[in-house]
């Protein structure tokens, strides 16, 4: 299972929450949460082939263009799964995750989903019927390890077309 992950500047280690204008960047190695997920990726036979990173401000300046470019990149590298997140309670990043996951599902052959915490109420309400959104804790909250495990389980079920996906979704998604 080939995976691409989409991060903001914080998760990718490219900046702090104030360095919002980090440009779109691609990395071939696993960074940030992709490293944290390694044990569960091993369990599910997943491999992060690339991490795509974008500053929150860069996204907000032109969401359509950023999403188009991310979809184009996904089309180019052809992963099985795209994981947008985990966005925790970073509101702008969460909005980017949901929107981009939806666009990827509609315009590419890859299957995408988002991951964020319940604090992103507006984004969850707007997108939960369009894309799968895996529950995570907020930054510094309880249950990070479990949520990373759930992300990998959803990725695996989605890639395999597992009939158990719907039940899993009920348990771990909004």
């Amino acid at each position, binding site marked *: 299972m080939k995976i691409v992950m989409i991060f903001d500047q*914080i998760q990718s*280690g490219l900046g702090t929450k104030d360095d919002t204008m980090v440009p779109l960047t691609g990395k071939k190695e696993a960074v940030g949460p992709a490293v944290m997920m390694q044990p569960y990726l091993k369990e599910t036979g997943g491999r992060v082939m690339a991490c795509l990173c974008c500053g929150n401000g860069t996204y907000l300046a032109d969401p359509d263009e950023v999403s188009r470019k991310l979809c184009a*990149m996904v089309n180019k590298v052809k992963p099985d799964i795209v994981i947008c997140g985990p966005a925790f309670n970073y509101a702008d990043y969460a909005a980017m995750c949901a929107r981009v996951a939806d666009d990827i599902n509609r315009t590419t052959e890859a299957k995408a989903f988002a991951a964020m915490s319940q604090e992103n109420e507006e984004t969850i309400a707007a997108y939960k019927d369009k894309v799968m959104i895996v529950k995570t804790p907020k930054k510094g909250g*309880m249950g*990070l390890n479990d949520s990373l495990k759930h992300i990998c389980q959803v990725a695996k079920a989605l890639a395999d077309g597992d009939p158990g996906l719907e039940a899993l979704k009920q348990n771990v998604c909004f």
Partner: protein
Amino acid sequence: MLQKLESFFMPLAEKIGKNKYLIAVRDGFLLSMPLLIVGSFFLLIANFPIPGWTEFWGQFFGENWASYFAKPTDATFSIMAILAVVGIGYSFAEQMKVDRLFGAAISLVCWFLIMPYEILFEESVVSGIPLGWVGSKGIFVGIICAFLAVHVYAWVDSKGWVIKMPDGVPPTVEKSFAALIPAGMSVLVFFVINVIFAMTPYGNAFDFVFEILQTPLLALGNTLPAMVIAYIFLHFFWFFGVNGGSVVGAVFNPILQTLSAENLAAFQAGDAMPNIICQQFQDLFATFGGAGSTLSLLIAMLLFCKSKRIKELGKLAIIPGCFGINEPIIFGLPILLNPMMLIPFMLVPTINIIISYICMSIGLAPICTGVAIPWTMPVIISGFLSTGWQGAVLQALLLILGVFLYMPFIKMMDKQYLADETKGTDETEDEDDFSLDDLSFDDM
């Protein structure tokens, strides 16, 4: 092993993190934090840690110049228990889902209700609000009062024993009448408590709580093992993604802040500071650059690592790191759930605490004055402002020691990343059928 530890400790962290009493104390103390820093700023000007400072300015502004600067400190530190009671009453009312402003007000009133209005003046007792009780000595009884007063208020409110006004009455007037009976019941309960304590040998609840609870708890908190254990837990929680500072601080910070206030009172009076462990000891000597003392790690990354991603992350995170912000490294390196970094992440702050404690206890570095220095103040400057030049030197040495403690671990990661980067340009390229150039967004 890690999973076992997680399954044992995380429910504990969750219980602490979600406990409404601890949340109220933690958030309540936030009210006083900026005010104490402002008060400290004036005190620092009056007592800048340079020999001859006060005398030097005394030549120009008169001998008593420093006393004017003491007044903002008196208006903040000396009444810090009032701020704590109001803050905790307010945030606990939020937890109990009753009006926050009335929660704060009723906490303050009930606290004053059981306070002995007695001041010793020329060997006789006169009436007045004693500064001792509204300062650090009154904090613990204040915390208890805020909880009990708001509890009674919320209980009466939940029973619906409130005066209801007819439609058309302005909401503020309605709220004010609705608070009447709950507030009255809270006052009644504390009236009874005051009468009961008056009949005991203690004479009042303040003396009782101070002797039975505050003094032993402060003595327990003011020990090296307490600080070390608290910090091991704090970092362990962070490793699993839980904000350890918030969990451990909810229990430990009221003790540390009270210890700091005692130090500050001694500093103002020109006496020796009594407590090595205090809020500033934690903020300024346990870690540099955020949890895990990651500023040392960043320096190690910049000096000893060769892989592109570690060097780049080091360059990017070093400036925020100087101001105690380490999000990029916590998430980006990452440190969370990264077993390779767990040992130094817990070890370096522990070593910092032990060495700082020893240095202060044998007099190599002065004990922190209790002057509130923001945790974002860069290392060395913060040590100087809190204790003088010796503290700055101690911080610098600990920072360097941390670099060497982190070095073997980050070099292991670096080696692995370096191998990945080399592999990335040969093998994985074929496997994934795309190159790094393909990941450029420039031509899209």
